[in-house]
Each structure stands twice: as structure tokens, then as C-alpha cells.
């Protein structure tokens, strides 16, 4: 994600894990015409009271600032960071990729999967399901390579992101 074209941003936020909280965030994006390229959400504290949301969005620098300011207004949101503008960060995504083929394409798919360190998590005589984790770019290129080799279905998680170094979402 770090290598994305200018205009893409990774926003991470902490939100009280209450009913409708995600609806507020999504509603803000749709209501104000902002784009959501990917969105992940899961509880991250020990009691399951706070969830972390990672959103990949696009826009000019001032759009992104405005998005951040609008999210900050939401009552259950306690912290918002624009990871892409606040120092280096790591963003990873997982995908499950089903390839249905036989003969030479099947062998080729398996060979490429090894090169990408994708794991076959389901194997039948005519299909593989590969699990692949990495940057979104890496996932994109793997999927492109699978396309002529019997690519049948893709399921992606969207990114989890975190800033590099000792600082955290709470203190940066």
C-alpha cells in the first residue's frame, strides 16, 4: 500500500465497539461522497470493547484531511490517524484465491504459488485454494498471474495496517 499512486491514504481509527458504530463510519463516507477502497474491522482490546478500523481511501491531500476531521467528529471514535501521512507504516492483506485447471496450467499455478510463498490450503484433483498474505500490490500481481491459469474466485480481507517503530495509534 505504501507504493500506491498519490491520492491513496490509509486511515486507522479506534472506535467503541457499539451497535451502529460501523454504520456511522460508512454512512459518513457515503453521505459525503468519499471513496472506500477497502475496510477492515475487528475488536483489538482485551475486553472486546474497542475495535480498530482500517480504511483505504482516495482523494487529494485536503480531501484526506477533511475525511480525518469528519471522522474525528464521531462520538464513539476515540482516535484517528492517517498512517500514510504520519511516517512509515506496514499494511498487509490476506487473500484466498481459487484456481480451477488441469495439466500444464495447474502445474504452472502451483509453481508460481511457491515463488510467491502462497500456501495451498485446499487441494482437489481439479482445483487449489491458495492463501497469500502480503502487500496489496503483491496480491494484485499474484491474482493477475493466476488469471490465465484458471483463476475462478478471489476473496480478500482488505488491509490491516500499523505504523512502524515504537509509536502506536494511541501516542503518535
Amino acid at each position: 500500500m505504501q507504493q500506491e499512486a498519490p491520492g491513496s491514504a490509509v486511515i486507522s481509527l479506534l472506535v467503541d465497539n457499539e451497535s451502529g458504530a460501523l454504520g456511522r463510519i460508512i454512512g459518513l463516507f457515503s453521505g459525503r461522497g468519499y471513496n472506500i477502497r477497502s475496510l477492515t474491522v475487528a475488536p483489538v482490546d482485551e475486553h472486546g470493547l474497542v475495535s480498530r478500523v482500517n480504511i483505504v481511501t482516495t482523494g487529494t491531500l485536503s480531501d484526506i484531511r477533511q475525511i480525518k476531521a469528519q471522522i474525528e467528529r464521531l462520538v464513539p471514535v476515540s482516535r484517528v490517524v492517517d498512517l500514510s501521512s504520519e511516517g512509515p507504516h506496514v499494511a498487509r492483506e490476506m487473500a484466498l484465491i481459487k484456481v480451477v485447471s488441469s495439466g500444464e496450467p495447474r502445474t504452472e499455478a502451483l509453481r508460481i504459488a511457491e515463488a510467491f510463498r502462497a500456501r495451498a490450503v485446499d487441494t482437489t484433483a481439479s482445483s487449489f485454494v491458495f492463501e497469500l498474505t502480503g502487500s496489496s500490490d503483491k496480491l494484485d500481481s499474484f491474482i493477475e498471474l493466476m488469471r490465465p491459469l484458471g483463476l475462478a474466485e478471489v476473496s480478500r480481507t482488505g488491509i490491516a495496517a500499523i505504523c512502524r517503530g515504537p509509536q502506536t495509534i494511541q501516542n503518535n
Partner: protein
Amino acid sequence: MTPKTASAPMAAQTTTTLPGAEVLMRALVEQGVEVIFGYPGGAVLPIYDALFRQNHIRHILVRHEQAAVHAAEAYARSTGKVGVVLVTSGPGATNAVTGLLDALMDSIPLVCLSGQVPTALIGNDAFQEADTTGITRPVTKYNYLVRRPEDLAATVHEAFAIAQAGRPGPVLIDLPKNITVGNAPYKGADEVKPRVGKVQVEPDRDAIVRAVAAMKNGRRPLFYTGGGIINSGSEACEGLRKLAKLTGFPVTSTLMGFGAFPGTDKQFLGMLGMHGTYEANLATHGCDVLIALGSRFDDRVTGRLDAFSPDSFKIHADIDPSQINKIIPVDQPIVGDVGRTIALMIEEWEKQPAYEHKAELTAWWEQIEAWRALDCLRFNQDQAPDAIIKPQQAIQRIYELAQQTGRDTFVSTEVGQHQMWAAQFFKFDKPNRWLTSGGLGTMGYGLPAAVGAQIAHPDALVLDVAGEASTLMNIQELGTIAQYRLPVKLFIINNHYMGMVRQWQELLHGSRYSESYSDALPDFVKLAESFHAKGLRATRMDQLDDVIREALAHDGPVVVDLCVAEGENCFPMIPSGAAHNEMILGPEQEERGAKVTREGMMLV
């Protein structure tokens, strides 16, 4: 009421458990609530029963839930308190939606309590069930569905805190019937830590220093003030007066900011924006330092964005950081309470070296006076006794004759031409006296708003300057006015058209008056009488003043049907997509409207 001390002994004891509806009443009383505007229904019967069995809170029965919200808005706007609304589930809540969005757009603190079907029935398409929190999420600052009795009291306290914190707004609490019937523990406000931690009240000192340095450097400065100053309170308004006197800078105001600075003061240029004055708009266009205080660069204010105040250093003070750089990039943002900002600006102004550009400021004032001399609000009224009354004449005379009564006057409006004329002709020397729907532009706002203002100020003179089309949208509130004997004066500027729609059709759509004629109007005099009010009518110049005087003198509700010229347009006007220095001043320049570009026509 001294709620905190009253509840303190309770807090020391073990937790008090009461039926949910009584917990609700108690929390409202602790929050200082004196009036609720509402309408009963199945899902709120337990709350209405608890209301019946107490003596602290007065309930005002409106005739439509939308009106309850507008009345509460006006109550809040005219008192500085939180307005409270109570509606039932389903249609009760959906009828409140327009009012909630109106309050959100105009930053009015409200708490709306809505009934809900019992939690066990939620999601079953039960009778009068609506996904109220889902529907109201984009029209409230925050909303709740109370699912657990132990959350009830804390939710109410937090809702009041959120409604008032930072930039105020409406908060809705959806109350399932089993929560209000069943028992719930009471919690005092002091036991609750509301989630309002993100508000920055105190402005950054360095930002103030830089802003004041820019002001000191200004040769053609202008204060552009908005509703945020009213929300901040009387100290902010006092501060603004002091700051303006200290600096000698001119002041213009948004529609929502009237009364923060005295409308009759020489330093006041009137409203800016689409129907603002010539002097205010040209000053905005030509200034070299623009000091925006509690205003948000609304599209009605800015006109064409790339031509808005093109040469100025822009300072923007707002408590809501998301407003800064939202529409217009500014040079010096100041996040914080605008009252504190003004107070610190005064301090800093006195601290920094003396203002060196007095000569240039004088020249700037001369320029402004030349613009002012154009008298952009002038209109030609035939003074013959049988002449047709112009709407501008009617509104100007309502203002002047109301002034002559010497009474504290609150003015609400509906939405449209009459609203803009009222904004142009009425001058407010005090804050909280002007009640209008600015951001949302809600037709039907004015009559229920007059109800709310009169309930809050029973001895004051309360006027609704209305149009015949707008006021019909909530005319049922004449019933509320009758029931509580509210001496509201409803002045209907009756031109038989949705005037602003007609004006745009004339200027932009080749005078094709598609569906904007008010056909089959009621006889407003008889309508008034059927609602136990006095009905008056003026159709000629010689009747106008007498009818207004009679209405103002009557000790009770009055509906005045002022039959005015049908074809008048509201000027000055900045056509859609035009810049401030391209305004249409009067009918003689109307052809400029025809030159509006396609891009301009796409704007509202």
C-alpha cells in the same frame, strides 16, 4: 431546581431503582429541563404517564412531530438551553427527521426522545416500528438505542452533554417500551463521564498572535461573523462588540449570526451572500484581511468559490475543526470557542504594537460608505391609498411598527423571499432574537418556531414573518397556539406564489412558472377565526399600517393576511455561480440572470 444537590444524598445511598419512565423524568429534571415539546403515541405511553404524575416539567402538545422539533429549536435558540422533544415510535420519529436535520445544519442543541417497540420485537416489522437510529444517524450529532435498563440514566446525561459540547447539535435517544416500563437504576449526572473529550475550547495562543498580527497589518479588514457567536453565548457577543470598537473594523454577518453584533450600529454592513447587501458583498470581495468568526463559508455566502474574497488573508475561528479548510482554504485557522478566541484577540490587540494603518482604514470606510450610499435595499412603493402593497414595504413596516412598541421582540420566519427580505430589513441589537432555518431552508419552520419562542418568553412580542406557501406547511400549529393562548403574531406576506421559486423561474427558466402558483389558498382570516385567533387582512396601502398596529396591539394570537404585489423579486442577488462583485441590484439588471451559465444553473 437545584438538581445536583437534590440528588447528592441519593448517590450516597444504595442505587435507586425506579420504572424506566421515572428514571427518564428524573434525569431530565436533573438536566434542568422545564419544557418538552411532544406528541403521544403507543410506544411512549409510559413516558406520558410519568409526565402526568410529576410537576417539574411542562409538556407542550404540538399538532405534528416536525413542529415539535422546530418549536424546541426556537426554544433552544432563544434561551441558550437545550430543547427537548418527545415523539412516539415509527411515524412519530420519522416525522421528526426534518427538524433534526434542521437543528444539525444550524447547530442547535436538542435532545429528542423517541419511543420504540419493545426490544424483543425490534426487527420484526412490529406495529409502528421504524429503524429510528438507522434513519436518524445522518441527521443527528449522535443517537442511541437504549437496550439495557442500566444504560438509561447515563444515556440521558451523556446525550445532554453531547448536544451542548463543542458545536451544538441534536441527539436522539430511542427508548424501547420495555425499557421505560421495566425498572432501571438511577444515576446522577455526576456519576457519568460523557464522551465529549475531543472538544478544544481554548484556542492556541500562537494562532491568536498570528491572527492579530495579520489584523494589525490589514488595510481593508472585515469581520465575517456567524451563528457560532450566538451559540457561544452572550459573552462572545459582548466580546465581538468590544473587538469591533477597539479595531474600528467593519462587520458583516451570516443569516445565522444576526444580533451577535448590533444591526443598527454604523460598523454593521448587513448580511453578506446571495441576498446580502451591496456593501457587505463588495467589502467581502475587496477586503485584504477577512476574519471569519463562528461562520462556515456556506455556499449561500461564498458564491463562486474561485472568486470569493480573492485577495484577502483569511482567518477562520471555529470550534469544529472539520469546518476549517472545508470549502475555502484559510491562512490562519483558530480552533476553539469563538468567545474565547474573541477575548484573546482583544487581549492580543492591546498587547501588540499600535495599529498603523488608520489612514488606509479610513479610506476603506469611505469606500464602504460609497457602496452603502447606493442604498441597495431601496424599492419603489406607490404611496397612493389604494396602491398595491409591495412585500418589502410590508416587511419594513412590520419591523418599524414592532420597534415602536418598545417590547422585547423575537422574530421567526418561514423560508423564501419573505425570509430574505426580513433578513434585510429587520435589525437585531441583541442575540437570540432571530429564529430562522438557515442551513436546511425548511419551509414550515416559522410558525412552530414562534410557538417555541413564545413558550420560552411568555411576555415577549413574538412575530412570524411568513409566506403563504411556507406557512401552510405547518399551519396546524395554530391549534397549539390556541390551546396555550400564545399571543403569536403571524404575518403572512401573501403574493400567491412560492416567491423564491417564482423568482428563480423568472430569472433562470424563461418565466415558465411551473407549479409555483399558490392556487386555492384558504381565506386566512376565516382560518384564523376557526382556530380561535384574530384574523386581519390588508390589500391596499392605506390599510397596511393600521392592520399591523392592530395586530401588534392585540393581546392574543393574530393571523394577518398581507396581500402584496405578486411579481416582486428579492434583490440584491448574486446569481448562481457568480462572484460577489457580479450581483444583480434590481429589476433593471435582471437580464444578468439570463446569462447564468449551465454550471451556475446546476447549483441550487
